[in-house]
C-alpha cells in the first residue's frame, strides 16, 4: 500500500492561491485579535481565591464530591474554575479559584455574594445550620497570576533566542534565506492558531502555550525535511529550472509529510474526542497546528524562498551557496 506514490502536484505554480488563503486567515485572525483580544486564563491574570468549607453538619449527608462542585460551578457561569481539596477529603474544604468577573483589582464582595448564592441554591444540604457570613467562605483573597509578567518576559526572551539560533543553524546547514523563511512559516502557523483562539474566544492557558511550542517544533521539522530534499535534488538536477526542482522535492517528500501528519493527527484527534474537557482545547490547538504546520511546510517555506530570491535577484548565489558545501 502506498499513499500518493509518484505524486506530481504543481505546488510551486499554485503558490499564489495558497498565499491568498494564508493572508485571508491572517487578516481574519488579526481582526479577531483587535476586536476580541485574547482570553487569558487565570494562569495569566489575577482572580479570586476562596477557601470554602462545605462539610455538612448533618452527618447523614455524604461528603461533597469535587466533581459535583465542579459541575455546579460550571453550569453557573464559572466553567474555568480551578478547584482542589485543602486538607483531607472528609473535611470537604475546597480552594476555588476563579477569574474575577467585575474588576481584577478588588476582591469584590460581588464575587463573594455570587459564590454564596450558587452554594445556597445548589448545595443547601451542606450548609444547613451554618453561619453563611463566616462559616462557609473561610477566606477570600485576590490571587495573583501563576505566570506573572516577569515569567512571561523570561519565556518570551527564551523563545526569541531559540528562534534566532534556529535561523543560524539553518543558515549554517542550508542558506540564510531558507533560515529566515522557515521562521516566517513558523510565525504564520502560530499566528493563525492564536487568531482562531481570538475569534472563538477560547482561553489561552499555560497548556495552550505548550501546544504552540510543540507546533513550532513540529512545523520546523516538517519544513527542514523538504529543504533537505531540495538541497539534494539541486545537486542532481543541475540543469533544471530551480522552481521545477523545488516542486519535485516537495512531491517526493509528500508521502512522508502526509503520513507523519496523519499519525500525529491521529493521536491529537484521539485526545480531542476522548480526552475530556481538560484536554479539549489543548488537542484543538494541536490539531490546528498539525494542519497548518503541514500546510505551511508544503506551500509556504520553500515557495517563499523562490519569491524572495526572485525579488532580490540572488537566486543563483543562493542555490550555489546551498549546494556548495556538505
Amino acid at each position, binding site marked *: 500500500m502506498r499513499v500518493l506514490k509518484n505524486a506530481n502536484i504543481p505546488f510551486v505554480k499554485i503558490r499564489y492561491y495558497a498565499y491568498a488563503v494564508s493572508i485571508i486567515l491572517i487578516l481574519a485572525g488579526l481582526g479577531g485579535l483587535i476586536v476580541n483580544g485574547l482570553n487569558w486564563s487565570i494562569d495569566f491574570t489575577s482572580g479570586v481565591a476562596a477557601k470554602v468549607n462545605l462539610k455538612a453538619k448533618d452527618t447523614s449527608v455524604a461528603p461533597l464530591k469535587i466533581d459535583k462542585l465542579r459541575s455546579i460551578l460550571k453550569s453557573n457561569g464559572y466553567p474555568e474554575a480551578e478547584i482542589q481539596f485543602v486538607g483531607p477529603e472528609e473535611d470537604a474544604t475546597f480552594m476555588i479559584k476563579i477569574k474575577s468577573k467585575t474588576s481584577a483589582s478588588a476582591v469584590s464582595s460581588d464575587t463573594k455574594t455570587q459564590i454564596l448564592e450558587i452554594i445556597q441554591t445548589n448545595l443547601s444540604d451542606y450548609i444547613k445550620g451554618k453561619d453563611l457570613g463566616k462559616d462557609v467562605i473561610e477566606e477570600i483573597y485576590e490571587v495573583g497570576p501563576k505566570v506573572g509578567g516577569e515569567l512571561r518576559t523570561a519565556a518570551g526572551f527564551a523563545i526569541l533566542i531559540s528562534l534566532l539560533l534556529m535561523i543560524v543553524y539553518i543558515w549554517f546547514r542550508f542558506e540564510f534565506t531558507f533560515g529566515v523563511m522557515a521562521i516566517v512559516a513558523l510565525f504564520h502557523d502560530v499566528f493563525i492558531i492564536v487568531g482562531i483562539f481570538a475569534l472563538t474566544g477560547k482561553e489561552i492557558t499555560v497548556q495552550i502555550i505548550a501546544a504552540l511550542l510543540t507546533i513550532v*517544533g513540529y512545523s520546523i521539522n516538517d519544513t527542514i525535511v523538504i529543504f533537505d530534499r531540495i538541497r539534494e535534488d539541486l545537486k542532481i538536477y543541475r540543469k533544471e529550472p530551480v522552481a521545477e526542482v523545488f516542486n519535485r522535492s516537495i512531491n517526493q517528500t509528500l508521502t512522508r509529510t502526509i503520513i507523519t501528519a496523519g499519525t500525529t493527527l491521529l493521536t491529537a484527534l484521539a485526545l480531542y474526542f476522548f480526552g475530556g474537557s481538560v484536554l479539549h482545547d489543548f488537542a484543538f490547538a494541536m490539531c490546528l497546528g498539525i494542519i497548518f504546520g503541514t500546510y505551511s511546510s508544503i506551500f509556504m517555506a520553500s515557495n517563499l524562498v523562490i519569491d524572495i530570491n526572485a525579488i532580490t535577484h540572488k537566486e543563483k548565489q543562493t542555490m550555489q551557496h546551498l549546494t556548495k558545501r556538505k
Partner: protein
Amino acid sequence: MKKFSWRGLSIVIFICVTAFYLAPLAIPNLPEWWAKNKLKLGLDLRGGMQILLEVDTSELSAADARGAVDQNIKIIRERIDQFGVAEPSIQKLGENRIMVQLPGVSNYEAAENLIKQTAMLEFKLVVSGEEAKKVLDTVDLNISNNLSFFPKLAELDKKDKSILADKADSVKAGSGVFSSLVRPGEVDFEVQYSDVRLIQDLLADSLFQQAVPMGYQLALDKADTESARADRILHVLSSAVELSGADLAKAKVEYGSSTSTDPRIANKPYISIEMKREGSRKFERVTADNTGKRLAIVLDGVVYSAPNIQERISGGRAQITGKFTSSEANELAIVLNTGNLIAPIKPISTSIIGATLGSDSIRSGSMAGIIGLIAVVFFMLVYYKLCGFIADFVLVFNVGFILAMLTAFGATLTLPGIAGMILTIGMAVDANVLIYERIREELDQGKTPRSAVDAGYKRAVITVWDANLTTLIAAAVLYYFGTGPIRGFAVTLAIGIIGSMFCAIVFVRSILDTFVITGTSKKLSI
C-alpha cells in the same frame, strides 16, 4: 563470535538505563535509594503540599513593600527551580501573602526551609588574644551594671556564685557573669553544650548587643548537624563588613578529594564561591592588609569557618567550609545564588492539597492516550508490515525511555505533559517514516534489500539529523534561558527527540541488520 559492536553496546545501555529508572514504578520493596527515584505526578493529577507565607513588610515604605512581595516571589521561584521541584505553583495572595503549592509531599520540610532562608553572607575579621579578652571584660562590666535587664543572667549570677566557685578557675574566660559561661579554647572561646541555648538567646537580644563594645560583634560557630550536642565556639569579630553577599557572583557545591591535606574539606562537601570583579578586588585588599589574621565567613550571624589568611588572595575565589551535610551544602548554595529575600517571610500554614483535576479527567486523558497509541501502532503495522512491526516494537522502548529520563531529571508529570508525550509518540514514528520511505524509493530503483537499506539509511539519516537538531537547539535554549514550566517543556521535548532518533537510527537498524536482512534475502516486507 561476532566482533564487538558499539551499536549493540549502546542498545544494551539504553535498555538498562530505562529499566533502572522504571523499576520503582513496577517493583515494590526496592531498596530506599533506588525506590526514591520515582516519577512524580503534578499538582493537577495528584495534588501536593501548600505553604502559605506572609511577607513582613513592616520595615519597608509602602512603595517598597509592594515591590518586595513580587521580588520575593521571584526569588522563591528561583530557589524552588534550583531545588528541583518541578512545576510548583506560586501565587500572590491578597496584599502580602504568597501561596506556594508543591507537587508531592516528600522532602517538603527541606523545601520550606529553603524558601524562608534569608542567607545574609558577610566576611568579617576575627579578633583574638588580649583584644578579644578585653571585649569580653567590657561585656561583663556593661552587664553587671545593668543586670536587671538580663533576668536570666541575673538568676545565674545569684545562683551560680557558689557553683561557679566550685568550677576550676582555669576553665573560665573571666570572672564576670557572661565570661564565666565561656572558657578559653585553643584560639577562640568555647561554650558548653548546656549553655548554647542561653548564649544564642543573648546574641539575638538587642539589649545584649548594646552591651558589646562598639566595633565588635560576638558570634557562635555553626552547629554540627551530625553531633548536635557538641560544644560550640564563640568568636569575637570586628563588626566591619569586609565583603558581603552583594560581592558574590556564583556559589557552587564541591567535594574535597579524600587525599586532600586540608582536614576541613577532605572527603567533605564545601561551597566554593566566586566573587564579582569589584568583590575580588576588595577581597585582595582585605587579605593583603590582614595577612596572619583570621577572616570569618558569617552567614545569618553564624560563623561557618574562620580560616587564617596566609597570603594575599587575588582572583576572587574562596571556600566556605563547615560541618555540612551534602544536602545542607546544596541548599545553602542555592540560597546564596538566588540572593537575599527583600523582606523576611514567615510560614502561616501548611496543608495537604488535592489534585486540581477530577479523577474523571485523568481517566479520560489516559483513555485517549491509549486509543491514540493503538491507532498509530495499527497504522504502522498495516502500512509497513514487518518493518512497521519493528518500528512498533521499538516504540514501546522509546516510550519507556522517555518516562525513565523524565524520572532521572526529576520532572513532574502533568496531564498536559502526558498529552505532550502522546503527541511525541505520533511524531516519534516520523524518523521511521522518513527512513522507510527512503528505503522504498531505493527498492523502486531495483536495489536489493541489503543495498536499499544501506542507501536509504545513508540519505535519510542526514535529514533526520538536520530536522531534529534544529528542534534540539531550540529545546536547549528554552532550557537554559527559561524558567518554571518552560524548562519542563524543554526537557520533555529534548528527551522525546533524543529517544526517537536513537530508536530509529540505531535500534531499528540493528534489528533490520541482524534479523531481517540476512545474507541474500530477496524481499523486504515494507
